[in-house]
């Protein structure tokens, strides 16, 4: 069974953390992953940096730009992650835009992910229908879970369609926004969380975008299986560097810090 599915079967709310590979320094990738696992993070999204990240706000954009300046490439990332499964057990997902994956070759990329011990992919600009018509068999061949997004504007029919072709979790974007927007949820968002929770989808949902602290994490996980934090963690890395990585998940998971 894929590590993501195993994790989703655990009877607990999940904390997933995103970071951009190659940031703040080129070779921080492995130690960030190890530190996050040690401090109780359930799942990690490793961002493959891209020059033109359309769905990201200023924080993740800046980290991607810096990572590319630092020399991060697709090949370099796979090299860094070569032995990651000797020390890390939690599910690892690569989040990246489609063009770098297309240039690497979709099948070659999936194969490499599987050899490295990557469990899933999030590719925001690979549309659901293109995946379904062209790439699904490749992902399945390498036992990779492809994660799709839904937003408050996604129609009910489309949510059902996305649910039907997903086999892990659904990434629920908390509001109509790019990453790193304001934190805390209003009534409109809570209603959206409730509406989706009541749909009884076959895939559990994990909420992302706009979660930055213990409060927003608790709010989101009241209605969903878990929550994903990205920009707030990148800011933590910018301010504190890598050595205090663990402080961040500790603060999210425990009210007292």
């Amino acid at each position, binding site marked *: 069974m894929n590590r993501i599915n195993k994790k989703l079967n655990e009877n607990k709310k999940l904390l997933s953390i995103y970071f951009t590979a190659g940031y703040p320094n080129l070779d921080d990738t492995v130690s960030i992953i190890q530190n996050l696992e040690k401090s109780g993070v359930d799942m990690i999204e490793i961002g493959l940096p*891209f*020059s*033109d990240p*359309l*769905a990201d*706000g*200023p924080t993740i*954009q800046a980290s991607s*730009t810096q990572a*590319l300046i630092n020399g991060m*490439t*697709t*090949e370099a990332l796979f090299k860094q992650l070569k032995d990651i499964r000797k020390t890390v057990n939690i599910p690892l997902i690569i989040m990246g*835009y*489609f*063009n*770098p*994956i*297309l*240039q*690497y070759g979709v099948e070659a990329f999936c194969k490499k992910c599987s050899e490295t011990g990557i469990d899933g992919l999030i590719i*925001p*600009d*690979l*549309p*659901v229908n*293109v995946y379904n018509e062209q790439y699904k068999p490749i992902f399945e061949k390498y036992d990779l879970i492809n994660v*799709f*997004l*839904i*937003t408050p*504007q*996604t*129609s009910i029919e*489309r949510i059902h369609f996305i649910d039907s072709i997903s086999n892990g979790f659904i990434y629920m*974007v908390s509001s*109509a*926004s*790019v990453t790193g*927007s304001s934190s805390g949820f209003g009534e409109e968002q809570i209603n959206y969380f409730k509406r989706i929770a009541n749909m009884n989808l076959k895939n559990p949902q994990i909420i992302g975008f706009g979660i930055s602290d213990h409060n927003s994490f608790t709010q989101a996980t009241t209605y969903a299986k878990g929550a994903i934090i990205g920009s707030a963690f990148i800011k933590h890395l910018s301010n504190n560097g890598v050595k205090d990585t663990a402080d961040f998940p500790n603060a999210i998971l425990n009210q007292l810090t």
Partner: protein
Amino acid sequence: MTYNINEKGYYGEFGGAYIPEMLYPNVEELRQNYLKVMKEPSFQKEFNLLLKDYVGRPSPLYFAKRLSEKYNTKIYLKREDLNHTGAHKINNTIGQILMAQRLGKKRIIAETGAGQHGVATATVCALMGLECIVYMGEIDIARQAPNVARMKMLGATVISAKSGSKTLKDATNEAIRDWINNPVDTHYIIGSVVGPHPYPDMVARFQSVVSKEIQWQLKEHEDKTKPDYVVACVGGGSNAAGAFYHFLEDTEVKLIAVEAAGHGVDSGESAATSVLGKEGIIHGSKTLLMQTNDGQITEPYSISAGLDYPGVGPMHAHLYKSGRAEFMSITDDQAMTAGLELCKLEGIIPAIESSHALAIFEQKKFKPEDVVVLSLSGRGDKDLNTYINYYKL
């Protein structure tokens, strides 16, 4: 083979809509409605009336006698430079503002490089009384100050794009992010035949008035409805798409697309996407784009801000790959020389983008009886500073 779009939104293997789910509702709404709206008689009527009375269409098809004599062939200039706001860009913004109104949108966003599309968008927003926000790279704001001022006078808010390389591609990224953040009340007026389906097709249709006019205008001059060649410069490809549109399937009409070679195709400072680009995804479209081996999008260079785009529309990627159009690249110096030549021979100061198209007559021989129609996409007023610096005027 067809050279136009298929029902799935592709030109051959190029096109599609590679967009994040956050954009899906906006783009899907447009996809489902654009053809229906464009076919409504009331839309047609309003669009055509504005093109006539506001833009000043039809733009003349002018036989350039002295230019023709010099190159010993028959050269006609399609005078898009005489349109209101000085370029072909307004054909598209008139169409899209009417589309936005029909879709009930209240807020308009756009990207701009040189500022021509920004000005054309600000103009139609003023005309219709809609809020207008234009994203422009920080570097372009500095080098295109007069157009920034024009947009402000027209009531638009110009927002500086400070991400990435701070030019057109980043302004486009910022506009797309704005659209993600404002999914309900906002329409994004893209300035060329780029972006996710249905944009390339919609913009091409709005620009297609250019080749429609060429067909009947040519008959008045030459007793034929089709030229031997149509020539146009290509940034994203909208003036070329408009000039080619009604000749796409008629292979007796040869199409020439002219890209900016900058300091030379091999100089590392160029915008000749067909030569330097590879297939990939940019701004939601599968097309040819300039990128590293690792799939990172690279910065193009051209003296002309309107040709300074690392991709090309999917229609043109298909025209290139299929061999339907001939692609030529013209350096900064060749374009500047051709621009000045048109001033001296015909009394017309062309936009530097259009000068790239004009420069092919030094590179390629035509027969004396060939009828060559060239899209003079814009006037040179916006480029005076560049001309002044280049020629030390």
